């Protein structure tokens, strides 16, 4: 079911050696607020086996879409190519490419045999006149899209120094079938599929750090119990069933524990349980409501929501419950914190002029930044594993759907287009490891 399981990476064509010159070059500074996309030429992939023209088309579509939505690349149209790329073995005619805006070039080929498929690509620096990388991937024809996402990951790695997240997925809640079920969709908006099919109310999915489990809360047994969905075996396991809430689970970065909301003395508090649902430990003790825990990536701190000061605000505490500090002071409703993978930001949802927007704040309470503008309600932020993107739900187009944007708010795009109402996205870890 998952690419990691299905296909074997052959790759690493050692015939080519990456020249030193490329190491020195910074193509794009992804930390820069005014990121200048790198012009890239993507040549049509050549069929070097049985004739399967639709594969070339899919490769081109998926690859250019990945590179475009990353925000790091500008795709140079084929009409601006100074030469036709015909033979895969030859390096490009660098002198003719000097007339083009393109700074890097991708070319590649594919071959298929029965239901097996191999894809290879090469990446050239047209300015430095250098070969950068070449790789080959092999798998079943069904994993074509996953293989192309890995090509995009590799190209992104070469250009930005960090691997792409094109093979990641996003789980979320949707009412497509009438009630709230958990769904999963690829990063590029393809491959929508239903995970839970229990007909109940299913909430707050949380992807485990190993990528194999999604924790969620369901009302199947007339109590908001915590369940796990095992993606590798497609089974649902009931995990924590204390009377009252067992909700809003958040995995510790090492996957050994979960923080969640549970009832104590008539109100919701933050607890930690082991990954098998045992040994609940209470972290917060208050007369107020506590909600929505999220772990710092080093596993030492937890941010959460509390209304102890009269309105829902975001607080941080040590993982033993001590050292509680209020983080947000601006506005009367701040909730749904999500700690970034690098640890330097917390994204959250705050009310401003009667609408909910996505903000980021530094963990010391400085540097508040609003990322969404005057368009609908925007809620439930979740970070991509590389920290470069934030997914969230928004009603800007009418019904609530899932959107993705760069971590600085640029490049906001709609990910889902369903007849349901969507909420609570959770980003998967990298599957390509």
């Amino acid at each position, binding site marked *: 079911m998952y690419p990691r399981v299905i296909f074997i990476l052959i790759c690493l064509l050692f015939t080519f050696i990456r020249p030193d010159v490329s190491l020195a070059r910074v193509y794009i500074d992804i930390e820069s607020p005014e990121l200048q996309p790198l012009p890239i030429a993507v040549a049509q992939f050549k069929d070097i086996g049985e004739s399967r023209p639709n594969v070339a088309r899919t490769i081109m579509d998926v690859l250019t879409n990945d590179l475009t939505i990353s925000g790091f690349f500008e795709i140079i149209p084929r009409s601006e190519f100074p030469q036709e790329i015909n033979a895969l073995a030859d390096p490009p005619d660098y002198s003719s490419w000097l007339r083009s805006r393109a700074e890097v070039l991708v070319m590649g080929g594919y071959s298929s045999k029965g239901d097996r498929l191999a894809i290879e690509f090469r990446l050239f620096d047209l300015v430095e006149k250098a070969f950068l990388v070449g790789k080959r991937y092999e798998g079943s024809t069904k994993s074509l899209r996953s293989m192309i996402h890995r090509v995009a990951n590799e190209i992104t790695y070469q250009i930005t120094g960090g691997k792409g997240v094109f093979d990641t997925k996003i789980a979320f809640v949707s009412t497509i079938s009438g009630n709230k079920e958990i769904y999963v969709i690829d990063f590029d908006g393809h491959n929508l599929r239903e995970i839970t099919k229990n007909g109940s109310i299913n909430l707050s999915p949380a992807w485990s750090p190993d990528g194999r489990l999604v924790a969620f809360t369901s009302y199947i047994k007339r109590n908001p119990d915590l369940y796990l969905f095992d993606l590798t075996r497609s089974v649902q396991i009931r995990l924590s069933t204390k009377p009252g*809430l067992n909700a809003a689970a958040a995995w510790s970065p090492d996957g050994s524990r979960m923080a969640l909301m549970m009832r104590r003395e008539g109100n919701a508090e933050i607890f930690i349980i082991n990954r098998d649902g045992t040994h609940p430990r209470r972290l917060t003790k208050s007369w107020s409501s506590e909600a929505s825990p999220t772990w710092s990536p080093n596993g030492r701190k937890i941010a959460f929501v509390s209304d102890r000061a009269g309105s829902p605000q975001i607080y941080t505490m040590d993982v033993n419950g001590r050292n509680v500090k209020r983080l947000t002071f601006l506005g009367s409703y701040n909730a749904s914190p999500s700690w970034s993978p690098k640890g330097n930001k917390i994204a959250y949802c705050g009310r401003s002029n009667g609408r909910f927007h996505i903000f980021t704040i530094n963990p010391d309470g400085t540097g508040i930044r609003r990322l969404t503008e005057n368009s609908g309600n925007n809620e439930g932020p979740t970070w991509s594993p590389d920290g470069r993107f934030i997914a969230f739900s928004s009603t800007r187009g009418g019904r609530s759907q899932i959107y993705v944007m760069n971590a600085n708010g640029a490049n906001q795009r709609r990910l889902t287009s369903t007849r349901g109402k969507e909420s609570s996205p959770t980003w998967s870890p990298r599957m390509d490891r």
Partner: protein
Amino acid sequence: MVKKSYIVIGVIVSLMVMVGCAKKAVKEEPMVTGKAGEKAWEKPAEERERAGIDEKSLQASLERKKYPGIEGEFLESSLLKDINFGFDRYDLTPKMREILSQNADLLLKNPGVKIQIEGHCDERGTIEYNLALGERRANRTEEYLISLGLSGNRISSISYGEEMPLDPRHNEGAWTKNRRAHFIILSR
């Protein structure tokens, strides 16, 4: 009949006043329990009679129900009235206490009935914070019913957050209806 209800209401009111006083020292709740009871006391005879519905009327009013996707059937009675909360509030106003004492009255006359209190929210705010808010609404309601003399082992509570709106529309009127504690009967 009328006489009997007078006695019952009298007992409840004095109980409420006692409980209200006892609680006051510990919890900062305004002493409106007695007032709500007094108001009921001053009502015209026919209304008093309605408040003092006999034990059979609850049993007769029960309707079988099921929520889709949630195991098991339950019973509902139109005689057990919802209470409606303010936005982002879980405190009980005098009006809500009055409704709760009428509900308690019915339940005290039907000691075998086990109920579940559902805490509900309107759609505004985050899903998870609303789960916490629903929890408090249900719990505050449960505490109050217990203070009126109901045994805690007859009552359970559950938060549905914003997941079960009574009115699916997106306006003030719908939101007011949706911010509620609702009562279902798990066994008679």
